[in-house]
């Protein structure tokens, strides 16, 4: 059983560098950041959030779906700004700061996915059709001081910049 005990040094390294996702298996936590969908091995249909057991297409009997990374970039389908703290189970910071949400269309997958917009980017900074890409930020810090991360939509860097 000795082999199963983690080396404390390694463990510390892992806990300080690894990002704990607020939800398991929906996105990568190291670069390049992408959302992770599920793809039916039968018909190739993609679904987000990822699921297992049954293809979402009514014409497909497929029961095997495998994780598949989604396009990192998409175009804003619509957006809004929350001006009041959402109720629990949302963990709102105090004092609450308004933040934006965007629904983003991934062209290759033909899916629109909702997400928080990167902190500081507000509705006035967004427009329909604008290119955004997946990034991560801290959603909340739990009672034990552990940060939980979530994907965000961040405006893509303008052409020519780094």
């Amino acid at each position, binding site marked *: 059983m000795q082999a199963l005990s983690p080396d404390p040094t390694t463990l510390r390294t892992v806990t300080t560098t690894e990002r704990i996702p607020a939800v398991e298996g929906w996105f990568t936590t190291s670069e390049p950041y992408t959302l992770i969908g599920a793809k039916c091995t039968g018909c190739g249909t993609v679904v987000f959030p990822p699921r297992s057991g049954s293809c979402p297409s009514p014409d497909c009997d497929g029961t095997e779906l495998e994780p598949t990374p989604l396009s990192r970039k998409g175009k804003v389908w619509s957006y*809004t700004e929350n001006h009041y703290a*959402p109720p629990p189970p949302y963990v709102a910071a105090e004092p609450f700061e308004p933040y934006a949400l965007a629904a983003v269309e991934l062209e290759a997958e033909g899916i629109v996915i909702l997400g928080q917009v990167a902190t500081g980017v507000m509705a006035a900074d967004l427009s329909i059709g604008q290119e955004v890409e997946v990034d991560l930020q801290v959603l909340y810090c739990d009672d034990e001081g552990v940060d939980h991360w979530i994907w965000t939509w961040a405006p893509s860097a303008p052409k020519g910049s780094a």
Partner: protein
Amino acid sequence: MATERDLVVLGAGMHPWGKWGKNFVDYGLVAAKAALADADVAWRDIEFVAGADTIRNGYPGFVAGSTFSQAMGWTGAQISSSYAACASGAQAMQSARAQILAGFADVAMVIGADTTPKGFFAPVGGERKEDPDWQRFHLLGATNPAFFALNARRRIDVFGDTVEDFALVKVKNSKAGVANPNARFRKEFTLDDFAGSPIVSDPLRLLDICATSDGAAAVIICTPEYAMKKLGTLQGAVRIRAVSNTTPTYPQVRLELPDIATDSNAVVQAPVRGFKDSIAYNAYEQAGLGPEDVSCAEVYDLSTALELDWYENLGFCPEGEGARLVRDGVTALGGAKPVNASGGLASFGEAIPAQAIAQVCELTWQLQGRSDGHQVENAKVGLAINQGLFGHGSCTILSV
């Protein structure tokens, strides 16, 4: 023309909408007794009770059909308890309608009541990581108003609507609601009131978003034969021409509450008709009627902008032109297509399981010419439409 399959709304009753925090059963009893009195039917004669459930009131809310049956006094009737979020009332309507058409009952009660907490709707308690409704709150803080706002924003950026167009919906509905004794807010709002209303989910202000209310509604429905015996004639009887509980067709490519993502249209092509269009389409098909036949409509104005979407989904105008109808007064009381002559959710606030039944009550009274002060002239066909979370379509068409 109505056929013998078109059941009759024999009576309708409501408990006025408000915010008192009483037990939802108390409200329901008032509505039930009012509907029975309106129909002149004894409780003992009701053969089927279809309850629309509420999920925030413990066990009695989950078994609304049983709860109201027991509260009124057990009679051995057959019952059902239905839940479909905002469409619960329409699902209960269809439950009772099918039982009657299947020959299991001649007369039935459809009933829903709710009492609601203050503030935004929050998901039911507990940590439920696999519940999409829990996920959208926990991971994104995507409230109901946020979803309304995404659609409102599309209207502005794609169709050229303005926030003033949205406000006009509230102005119109609040004006009609002043005369409705069952409405909770009987105050006429003006465009000026909007400037002082705080933004909730940009571009929507507090005044753009409907409140949550306490309230109850009940209707008594029956076969034409039963109504004939009771009334002596079917002349002027309000007939149920359609009830549609339509679900989406895969892929559902419009982002809908409470989903974090749409289906993919990369492998399977999107259906010709989107979900919200199909709700009305199926009801029209069932009734053998079209948008041109509708005298008045009750639509869910959960947000002001949402009412404009419904105009288009109902075929009252082409997509993108909804704002014109409210600007031009087409959908106002006195216009060619009055919408929410009751005052709508703007004047009522939503009492979830009661609301779709309340729409039927309102239409019944409109078709009977009993809507003093907010009567649509010469109303012959009434339509009620809404949509519940998780793909629940709800459309009812009545006619005289």
